[in-house]
C-alpha cells in the first residue's frame, strides 16, 4: 500500500507543472543570475569625476598615478563648473568628485606647505568612499616616502640605510588555503541555492496533505483497509526522492555549466540524502501541525527564507553579526551548506562531515517525531 500511495503521489507531482518550476526552474534561474552578477563583480569599475583647477604637472602626475591603480575610472566633465558639479552631488546625481585646487603643484614643490586634494561625496554613497579614500591615501603615502628619501639622501645616508628606513616594520602575507578545487562565487551560489530550494519541498508537501484532508480523500481512504502509517510513509517517500533528484540536477548543473568541483561524490551523496530526510521530515511535521494551507505557507517561508539568510546560503555566514551567526547554527541549512563547501573546497570526506550530517539527521528525527505524534489528531480532524 505504501508503494501504491507513493506511486500515485509521484504521478500527481509529475502532473504539477508548478512543482518543476519551484523545485528546478527557480533555483537554476537564481544560480545563473547570481553566478553572472558575482563573476562580473571584479570587473566592475567605479567612476569618479575629477576637476583639475591647478592644471600643473604635479596634478597631472597624481591623476596618472590614480589611473594606474585601476581601482576606479576617472571622468572629467568640462561642461559644468566645479560649483555645479558640487550641486549635482548635493542632489544625489553624482556620487563622488576629486578636486585639485589651484596651488596644489606649488605646495607640493615647496615642501613647506601641505598640498590639499578635496574629496566631495554624497552622504548616501559612503560605501564607495572607503576604497577611493584608501587609494588617495596610498598615493599620498608614496609622495611622503619620496620626500623622506630625498631628505635622507641630502643628509648623506646610503641606499642600504634608505631601504632599511623605508621598509615597513610589518609585512602582511596573504595565503589562500585550498586543499582541492578552487574558491569562487560558484562554490557559494550553487550549493547555497541547491540547499535553499531543497527546503521548498515543504510547500508541496503542505499543499498535498491539505488537499487530501479538505477534499475528503483521507476520510475515504480510511474506509479501505489502508493502515494509518502506510499513508504517512507513502506520502513522505516520494518527496524524499524529489529532493534527491532536485539536488542531483542542480549540482549537476553547477558541475557541467560552471565547472563546479564536487569533491568526494559519496560525501556529497550523503549530504543530499541528509538534506532530503531533514527537509521532508520538517515538511511532514509542518503539514500535520498547521490548520490551513496559508498557515503552512507562512511556516515554510519562515524556514526556507530565514534559514537561507541565517544559514549563509546567500552570502557567507561569517558576514553576519555574531548573535545572528549563533542563531544560524540552529538552522539545518547552515550545516548542509558548510558540509557541501567543506567537501567541494577543502576536500573533506564523509568522516569529516559527520557532525554536519548528525545535526541534519537530528532535525529530521525531531520533525518525524513531531509528525508521528501529531498524525492521529490530523487524521481525526480529516475524517470528522
Amino acid at each position: 500500500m505504501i508503494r501504491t500511495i507513493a506511486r500515485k503521489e509521484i504521478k500527481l507531482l509529475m502532473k504539477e507543472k508548478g512543482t518543476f518550476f519551484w523545485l528546478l526552474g527557480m533555483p537554476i534561474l537564481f544560480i545563473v543570475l547570481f553566478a553572472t552578477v558575482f563573476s562580473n563583480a571584479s570587473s566592475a569599475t567605479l567612476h569618479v569625476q575629477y576637476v583639475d583647477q591647478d592644471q600643473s604637472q604635479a596634478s597631472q602626475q597624481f591623476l596618472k598615478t590614480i589611473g594606474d591603480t585601476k581601482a576606479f575610472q576617472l571622468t572629467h566633465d568640462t561642461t559644468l563648473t566645479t560649483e555645479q558639479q558640487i550641486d549635482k552631488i548635493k542632489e544625489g546625481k553624482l556620487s563622488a568628485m576629486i578636486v585639485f585646487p589651484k596651488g596644489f603643484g606649488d605646495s607640493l614643490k615647496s615642501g613647506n606647505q601641505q598640498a590639499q586634494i578635496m574629496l566631495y561625496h554624497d552622504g548616501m554613497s559612503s560605501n564607495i568612499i572607503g576604497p577611493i579614500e584608501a587609494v588617495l591615501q596610498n598615493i599620498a603615502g608614496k609622495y611622503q616616502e619620496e620626500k623622506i628619501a630625498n631628505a635622507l639622501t641630502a643628509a648623506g645616508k646610503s641606499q642600504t640605510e634608505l631601504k632599511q628606513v623605508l621598509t615597513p616594520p610589518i609585512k602582511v602575507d596573504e595565503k589562500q588555503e585550498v586543499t582541492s578545487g578552487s574558491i569562487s562565487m560558484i562554490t557559494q551560489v550553487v550549493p547555497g541555492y541547491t540547499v535553499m530550494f531543497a527546503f521548498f519541498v515543504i510547500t508541496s508537501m503542505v499543499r498535498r496533505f491539505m488537499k487530501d484532508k479538505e477534499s475528503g480523500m483521507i476520510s475515504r481512504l480510511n474506509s479501505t483497509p489502508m493502515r494509518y502509517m502506510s499513508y504517512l510513509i507513502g506520502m513522505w517517500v516520494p518527496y524524499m526522492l524529489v529532493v534527491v533528484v532536485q539536488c542531483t540536477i542542480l549540482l549537476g548543473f553547477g558541475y557541467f555549466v560552471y565547472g563546479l568541483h564536487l569533491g568526494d561524490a559519496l560525501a556529497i551523496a550523503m549530504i543530499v540524502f541528509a538534506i532530503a530526510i531533514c527537509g521532508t521530515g520538517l515538511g511532514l511535521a509542518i503539514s500535520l501541525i498547521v490548520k490551513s494551507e496559508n498557515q503552512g505557507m507562512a511556516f515554510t517561508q519562515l524556514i526556507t527564507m530565514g534559514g537561507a539568510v541565517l544559514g549563509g546560503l546567500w552570502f557567507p555566514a561569517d558576514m553576519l553579526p555574531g548573535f545572528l551567526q549563533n542563531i544560524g547554527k540552529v538552522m539545518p541549512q547552515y550545516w548542509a551548506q558548510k558540509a557541501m563547501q567543506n567537501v567541494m573546497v577543502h576536500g573533506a570526506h564523509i568522516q569529516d562531515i559527520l557532525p554536519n550530517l548528525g545535526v541534519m539527521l537530528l532535525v529530521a528525527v525531531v520533525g518525524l517525531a513531531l509528525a508521528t505524534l501529531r498524525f492521529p489528531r490530523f487524521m481525526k480532524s480529516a475524517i470528522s
Partner: protein
Amino acid sequence: MEMAIEVKGLQKGYAGKLAVQDLQFQVRKGTCFGLLGPNGAGKSTTMKILSCITTADRGSVNILGYDTATQSQEVRKIIGYVPQNITLYEKLSAYDNLLFFGEMYGVKGKALKQRIQEVLEQVGLADRTNDTVSTFSGGMMRRINIAAALLHKPKFMILDEPTVGIDPQSRNHIFDLIQSLKAEGMTIIYSTHYMEEVEALCEDVAIIDHGKVVVAGALNELLAQYGGRSIYLELEGDVQPDLTPLSQRITKQGRGFRIETDAVLDTIRRTAELCQLRGYRTSQLEVVRPSLEAVFLELTGTSLRDA
C-alpha cells in the same frame, strides 16, 4: 430473511452536540435500504460509522457478521463506500484513479486491470478510460466515484448521497447501476434527501431527523400506514367548486384540489358524479400515490424540504 446489517443504539457526538442518538435499524441481505432525511439529520455520520471511517460513542454495528468496532479491517474489505464528496485525483486519468483505489483494496495485476474495464463499462465510461478526470462533467465524476468503490467486488455498498448535483443522464446511469447490483444480490444502503430516489430504488427505508430514526420499515408498509390516501381533481375554467359533500379533508394543491379519503375508489366515483351533477368540467381526476413526503410530514409535522 437474513439480515446484512444490524445497527443498535448508535450514538455519536461532535463538540458536545449529538449527531446521531440511539439509532436503530436493520438491513435485509440483498436489498436496497434507504436512509432518508433532511440535511444535517445525521445520515453522513451514520454512513461514516458503517464504513469504519469513524467510531460510534455508543451502540454497535454488525455488518455481515463483523462488528465494526472490533473487526473494522474485515468490514473494510467487504464494503464499498461512496462518499458524498467527489474524492478523486482530478489531475489523474480515470484509469489511474481506479488503479490507485483498486490497489488500496488489495486488488492487483491482471485481475485489477480486468476489473477496471468491467467497472468502467458498468458506469458507462469505458470510452473515457484514459481521459483526465478534470475533463469530466460532475455526473461523470460521480460515476467514477462509484466505480472506485466497486473494484474489489464488495458484498455491501454504502452510497452517501451519490446523485447530488448531477445531470439526468448520469442519474439514470447510477439508478441502472444500483438496480443491476441489486440483481446480483448485493446489499446496498443508500442515503439521500430525495424521497423520489428512495421510492424508486429501495425496498426498505429509515427516515431520520435530528439524529434519530423517526420510522423504519418496508417502504410499501410505511406508505400504506402513513402516506395518506387521496385523489386529485382539477377543473377546467376558473371555477370555485363546492366539494364538501365528498370529504372534510380537502386542500388546494396547484391548480386543483387534493381530497383525502380512506375509500379512494368510492370517492372517485362520487367526485365524478358530483362534477356531472353540478356541471363542472374535469381536466384531471386521479388517485394520488402515497409519498414519503407525506409520511415525513405526518410523522414530524414538517415538510422534508423545509426540515
